[in-house]
């Protein structure tokens, strides 16, 4: 039995227990929606968006929607759903994790055909620095400074961490790093390698990495804007620098056809998804550190989320289907850099 199988059984047992205990959608007064999400937007969903949608749906239909919410790392959540966790809606950190569910045959429609290509919120990769930016970090190029202590999560264990490395490499490739000519793959790769010489700790996930930074470890941390903003909201004093050129992180949401139909909750699930692109929900994302995808709401929060000089998407590196093998595959650029680094020590 594979790990996936074991996870499936585990989840099956839990869901069985839950459904026996609750009598899933046994009366028409109540429907149950299961949300499988990644951990970052936990607060925004459970505190704002879900209660707002419940009120909205109650008013419209008189029905109460009960939510079963599960929050895991994006990759782990995606695998759990493939392994048998019967989520009706998946809200994950990157496209590849939704694609995995689609490949397993659980999503049968074109999930990207929804508004904004199925993306509900965005963020950018930034450089977190100590209060007052004592080391005067301005841009990616400063990360190669000898003796600098950089934190970033491990791209092998955290799908989200792939954003960071793609951002550094891509910015170099786009000619936004001094000394690296535009489109010069060798130079961009050397630059990435120099940055990585300064990476001293790779935690397993974005949250763990920033927690370590909060504990006083490291001089800078490669992270997402929303992580820093959430940290600041909870009283942390560190700051962040937006590089001239960085990658736009897009967070997808998809309805899982097989589960929605099996549970008979399609109408409410569709309504919930649509609700995520409403002004109300978009403002909620903005309130919790994520950049909204709605242009009007984005305009409203322009002060909080300043525009980036050169903002690009993963498509610049050929989309995830090419970026993952090119950078992180067995012969990928990142893999080779870390192999070489390991050898030289």
């Amino acid at each position, binding site marked *: *039995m*594979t*790990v*996936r199988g074991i996870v499936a059984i585990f989840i099956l047992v839990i869901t069985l227990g839950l459904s026996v205990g609750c009598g899933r959608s046994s009366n028409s007064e109540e429907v149950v929606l299961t949300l499988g999400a990644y951990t970052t937007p936990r607060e925004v969903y459970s505190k704002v968006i879900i209660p707002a949608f419940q009120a909205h749906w109650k008013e419209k239909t008189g029905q109460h929607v009960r939510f079963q919410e599960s929050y895991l790392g994006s*990759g*782990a959540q995606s695998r759990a759903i493939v392994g048998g966790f019967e989520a009706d809606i998946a809200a994950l950190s990157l496209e590849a994790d939704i694609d*995995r569910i689609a490949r397993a045959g659980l999503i049968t429609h074109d999930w990207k055909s929804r508004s904004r290509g199925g993306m509900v919120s965005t963020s950018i990769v930034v450089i977190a620095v100590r209060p007052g930016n004592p080391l005067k970090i301005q841009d990616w190029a400063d990360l190669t400074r000898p003796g600098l202590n950089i934190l970033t999560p*491990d*791209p*092998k*264990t*955290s*799908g989200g961490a792939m954003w960071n490395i793609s951002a550094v490499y891509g910015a170099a490739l786009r000619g936004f790093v001094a000394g690296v000519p535009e489109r010069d793959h060798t130079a961009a790769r050397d630059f990435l390698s120099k940055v990585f010489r300064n*990476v*001293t*700790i*790779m*935690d*397993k996930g974005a949250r*763990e990495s920033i927690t*370590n930074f909060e*504990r*006083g*470890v490291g001089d800078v941390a490669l992270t997402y804007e929303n992580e820093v903003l959430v940290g600041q909201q909870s009283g942390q004093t560190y700051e962040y620098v937006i590089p001239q050129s960085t990658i736009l992180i897009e967070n997808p949401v998809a309805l899982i056809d097989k589960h929605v139909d099996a549970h008979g909750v399609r109408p409410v699930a569709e309504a919930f998804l649509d609700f995520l692109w409403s002004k109300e929900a978009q403002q909620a994302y903005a309130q919790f550190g994520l950049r909204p995808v709605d242009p009007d709401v984005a305009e409203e929060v322009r002060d909080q989320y300043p525009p980036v000089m050169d903002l690009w998407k993963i498509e610049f590196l050929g989309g995830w289907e090419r970026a993952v093998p090119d950078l*992180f595959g*067995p012969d990928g650029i990142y*893999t080779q850099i*870390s*192999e070489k*680094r*390991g*050898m030289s*020590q």
Partner: protein
Amino acid sequence: MTARALDPQLQQPISPVLVPRPWGTWGIRFVAISYLAMMIVLPLTAIVKTAFQAGPVAFLHELASPIAWEALKLTLLVSTITCVINTVMGTLTAYVLVRFEFPGRRLLNALVDLPFAIPTLVTGIMLVVLYGPQGIASAWLEGLGIQVIFAKPGIVLALLLVTFPFVIRSVQPGLIEAEKDQEEAAFTLGASKWGTVYRIVLPTLLPAILTGRLLSFARAVGEFGSVIIVAGNIPGITLTAPVYVYGQIESDNQQGASAVSVILMTLSFTLMLTVDWMQQRKEEVRHAG
């Protein structure tokens, strides 16, 4: 065999009343063996199967990755260091806990098992808080120029903590049983204090020490929860094999994960068999002599 040879009661013919019915013993055997098969053999077979899913060449290819190889070497290194420190300090601790009287002994003795009750993740965080950059001991360590957390010493420290009870708990019963008289006799017969320990105490304890250190080695080889927190996980430098395995699973390389796991398992298993065999041989030699 030794126990039976020494115990006069066991040498007497067993009374017929005590002979269980044959189906009874077979039933017990069946239960125990199927339990073992279900709990251990089945999952292990699954891991081996995934490792060799795409054939032996693919299996070797997974291991040929320099990062996997460095991770295995590092795990072997830190587990061996842990094992050596445990052997010495564990035996010493057990000896002191059994042979010496001092206030708080009972409490200390009870504390020994505590590492088993703490989630290893917490062990890791505890160490970071203690020895990390903002930790209580960090200024002192920095003065000495030693980096503990996010470096190899941190990994060994975490492993020592999670394997703490093994040697102590294996050695203790033997020490309690071993007659203090023997030590005293040797001592009065003119043996030095260290000579007594070396000639009398250690040989009787050796099998128990071996078992304890083996358990601690096997446990150290597979430790994940605390290591991922304290190690820093830089491939080729501070990335251990179990953390590497986790990374492979997370990046959808089930086979790579299983291949490295198979090596870890084989390592521990071979070691256990070897020690078992050595002990058996020694027993035979003793009986022959």
